[in-house]
């Protein structure tokens, strides 16, 4: 086919879109059905608002046992044994250790280095070593207290990225899970051309997801001998794969059911596979009786992955006129004790590290470093919020050195049509990042407020105000060739009465896919959205449409659903005399009835489709060059803050989020994604700090002292969408879910630094920026606000 990668950058208005449009019937008006782009109320709202939705901990079964997990205390070492206090009658308990695992003792993620239950050596605190279950939940606590794990703790655990790199080994070769290099252009030439160079080091902390529903699973063996595991999760087929390996059962002997999931944010991408394996081992040891394994908040925070802490060293150079000549980035993530998802978090972080800027030469080295922290993992944004924070602060630092505004530096360097990104991706002719920036400046009244703040701050009181912005983009879908490898599948199924079901493993965790996927199918079928529902996510009922991660559900799975729905309609036209121009629900139902009448023994009218990557999207994993994503969302976020120099407290006054996301499928759901993501990122920027104990464990593993934003902390969040051009997703949509996690951190810190300008404070360079960090930065500054 005669198009290039450039046609698909940001979804472009390339031939793929046109080709898909052409498939629609010529009799169909070109105007869109009102289903796409309308604020269809969420299909799950009615039962959720009334408290009728059933989450995993709301379910109970006759004869059900409750499970608990025995964990290590030390940050690595050798297991010497597990002592069970003989004063306890253990005969009424089910007990499982690594010796009871029928299959592989591995959770199976990527490198397969993480055991389901530690058997001999362990690498971190809170690592699971044994499982117990009992019919009385209350007895578990005393039983846990009567079990002693004998540990030979390793002498010098490693908790710091650079200390671990310097140690050079002990956890894995070089203590480095992955070492990636992305290079672009001639770095030496870029350095030679630079007239001004900024160097800085930036850090971000761990972040806990705090989905309000803690993690949990129930496992049992059904009458047919099938091992059934149900619970809170994002990726049912990941769970299935882990269960198959751990229990040595075939897929046909396993069934994974996603129950109503109370938030995920990446935290339920990989860890649910562990809990599912644990619950499965317990039910197998208990003769198939149901076992519920639900964490309380303290255990959830102690044991489950966090956002990777990062440190980034940036050197960025420019000519005096502000044009970038080179960027040289050393990006490192604390992967924790096992590699889990760190390799893919790292690759996304590396690719996003140079930001949305034109730069003729660049080098980004990225390493996922092993430490003795519990493994860090997926969290909305997936490495990008960390590296974007660094490049955005570096751009501000460079602007200070050049003596121009951060805004001007971005306007000079932002990617525009015809440019090629550092990853090697050409920017298509429809991209208009300037329009996104312009709207953000207008909505936030940026320049006027900047002037007002200057006047306000000049009065010299203890309060200072500032406004700051971040310009960024976020690639949607799996990185590189990930979507090709996944080859996701989805289906639509029509009933005789014309009701249609979407069959996909995409898991509703609040983001709205049980509504948006139905809108997409309804649009392609020409039906009102009421006629379409998403089938319950059950691996024996729905195909593997891949994990519910990476901002891919609407864009990638939605596209497959759209294709399946189009084919279903085409079949009804061909096989059941559905008139091409008949877009009525009644006509559709009548055609379905005719189809079934003519096929008395047909079990179902079901059409499957599989993901086909847009042609021309190529990615070279060894050089990190090519087109890493089929589409990007572009954004400018603006934060306005007030800082109290006496207390270090920062208060957000206003927040504006402008983004170009292709076609918005459901404006209320889309805005909700942005508002929620911004609030979560405000927490990342200002409030949420994981405090570590001596063994590297999370010491503040309670909502009481790990502080997430409340309604009183969140400013007005003003969200604006631009729909400049079609994305590669269904009806021109792009991915959105992670984007809002990227921008608030850098925008807020830029605003804080603007507020502190002139006080003599050192620019802030670390997230979260807690009051104590602000006080430290202003140390030596006179508390009435005058520079010392």
């Amino acid at each position, binding site marked *: 086919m005669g198009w290039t990668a450039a046609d698909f950058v940001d979804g472009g208005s390339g031939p793929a879109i046109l080709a898909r449009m052409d498939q629609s019937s010529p009799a169909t008006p070109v105007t869109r059905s009102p289903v796409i782009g309308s*604020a269809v*109320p*969420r299909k*799950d*709202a*009615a*039962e*959720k*608002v*009334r*408290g*009728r*939705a*059933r*989450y995993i*901990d*709301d379910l*109970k079964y006759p004869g059900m046992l409750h499970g608990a997990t025995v964990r290590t205390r030390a940050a690595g070492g050798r297991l010497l044994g597990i002592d069970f206090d003989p004063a306890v009658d253990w005969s009424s308990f089910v007990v499982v250790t690594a010796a009871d695992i029928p299959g592989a003792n591995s959770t199976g993620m990527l490198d397969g280095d993480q055991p389901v239950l530690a058997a001999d050596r362990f690498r971190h605190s809170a690592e699971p070593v044994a499982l117990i279950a009992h019919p009385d939940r209350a007895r578990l606590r005393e039983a846990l207290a009567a079990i002693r794990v004998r540990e030979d703790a390793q002498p010098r655990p490693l908790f710091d990225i650079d200390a671990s790199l310097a140690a050079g080994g002990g956890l894995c070769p070089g203590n480095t899970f992955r070492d990636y290099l992305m290079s672009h252009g001639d770095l030496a030439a870029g350095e030679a051309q630079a007239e001004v160079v900024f160097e800085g080091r930036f850090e971000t902390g761990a972040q806990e*997801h*705090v*989905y*309000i*529903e*803690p993690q949990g699973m129930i496992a049992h063996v059904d009458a047919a001998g099938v091992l059934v595991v149900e619970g809170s999760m994002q990726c049912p087929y990941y769970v299935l794969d882990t269960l198959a390996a751990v229990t040595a059962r075939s897929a046909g002997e396993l069934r994974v059911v996603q129950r*109503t*999931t*109370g*938030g*995920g*944010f990446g935290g339920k991408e990989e860890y649910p596979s562990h809990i599912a394996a644990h619950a499965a081992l317990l039910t197998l040891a208990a003769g198939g009786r149901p076992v519920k394994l639900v964490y*309380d*908040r303290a255990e959830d925070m102690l044991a489950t992955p966090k956002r990777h802490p990062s440190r980034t060293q940036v050197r960025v150079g420019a000519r005096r006129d502000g044009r970038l000549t080179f960027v040289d980035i050393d990006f490192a993530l604390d992967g924790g004790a096992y590699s889990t998802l760190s390799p893919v978090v790292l690759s996304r972080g590396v690719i996003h590290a140079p930001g949305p800027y034109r730069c003729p030469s660049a080098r980004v080295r990225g390493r996922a470093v092993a430490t003795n922290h519990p493994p860090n993992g997926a969290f909305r944004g997936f490495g990008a919020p960390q590296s974007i924070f660094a490049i955005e602060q570096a751009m501000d630092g460079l602007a200070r050195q050049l003596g121009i505004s951060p805004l001007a530096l971005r306007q000079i360097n932002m990617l525009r049509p015809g440019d090629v990104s550092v990853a090697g991706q050409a920017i298509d002719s429809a991209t208009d990042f300037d329009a996104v920036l312009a709207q953000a400046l207008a909505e936030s009244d940026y320049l006027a407020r900047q002037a007002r703040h200057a006047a306000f701050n000049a009065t010299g009181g203890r309060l200072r105000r500032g406004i700051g912005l971040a310009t960024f983009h976020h690639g949607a879908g799996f990185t590189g060739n990930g979507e090709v490898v996944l080859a996701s599948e989805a289906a639509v199924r029509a009933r005789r009465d014309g009701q249609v079901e979407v069959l996909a493993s995409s898991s509703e*965790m*609040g*983001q*709205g896919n049980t509504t948006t996927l139905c809108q997409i199918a309804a649009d392609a079928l020409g039906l009102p959205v009421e006629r379409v529902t998403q089938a319950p996510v059950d691996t024996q009922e729905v195909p593997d449409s891949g994990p519910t991660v990476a901002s891919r559900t609407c864009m990638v799975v939605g596209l497959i659903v759209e294709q399946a729905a189009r084919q279903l309609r085409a079949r009804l036209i061909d096989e059941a005399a559905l008139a091409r121009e008949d877009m009525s629900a009644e006509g559709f139902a009548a055609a379905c009835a005719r189809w079934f009448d003519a096929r008395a023994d047909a079990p179902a009218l079901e059409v499957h489709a599989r993901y086909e990557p847009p042609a021309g999207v190529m990615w070279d994993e060894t050089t990190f060059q090519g087109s890493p994503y089929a589409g990007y969302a572009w954004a400018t976020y603006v934060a306005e803050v007030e800082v109290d120099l006496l207390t270090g407290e920062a208060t957000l006054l206003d927040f504006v989020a402008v983004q170009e996301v292709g076609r918005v499928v459901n404006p*209320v*759901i889309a*805005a*909700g994604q942005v*508002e*929620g*993501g*911004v*609030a*979560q990122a405000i927490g990342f920027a200002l409030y949420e700090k994981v405090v570590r104990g001596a063994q590297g464990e999370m010491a503040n593993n*309670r*909502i*009481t002292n790990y502080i*997430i934003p*409340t*309604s*009183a902390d*969140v400013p*007005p*969040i003003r969200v604006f969408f631009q729909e400049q051009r079609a994305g590669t997703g269904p009806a021109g949509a792009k991915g959105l879910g992670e984007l809002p996690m990227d921008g608030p951190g850098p925008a807020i810190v830029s605003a804080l630094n603007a507020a502190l300008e002139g006080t003599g404070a050192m620019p802030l360079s670390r997230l979260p920026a807690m009051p104590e960090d602000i006080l430290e930065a202003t140390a030596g500054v006179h508390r009435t606000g005058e520079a010392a």
Partner: protein
Amino acid sequence: MSTDITLRLTLNGQPVECVVDPTRRVLDLLREDLGLTGSKEGCGEGECGACAVLLDGAMVNSCLLLAGQLQDAALRTIEGLPTDDPLFEAFARAGATQCGICTPGMVVAARALLDREPAPSRERIREALAGNLCRCTGYVRILDAVEAAARVPSGRAS
């Protein structure tokens, strides 16, 4: 363990009598003994508000309430709100629920507010809901929903 007591209360408008350990958490009494699972446990220490209930009309976190404290009290849970409570429709329409786990507690907190103050300002709503954590929405649409519900002419007895 304490000696069980006979507890008499009005639960969602109905008289209820049960024999219970007076130190049992009301959240467990509701969820495990009475099958009322609309109240959720998010933290177990009174921070998140997902287990909020109305005790004699005032919002309390049921994870911090003991069964013995219910003697002769009137307890209302999410299951006991009238089916036509305008908050339900308002939350659904505004997009105020996403994952939904905080929603029952949030609706109960909003009901406690509106029963006390039928027309609260947005700032007042923001304050009144500050004890209920939501990790999905950023609260914007929750505030919208409570404002919208407050505008619905009250046709029902509170």
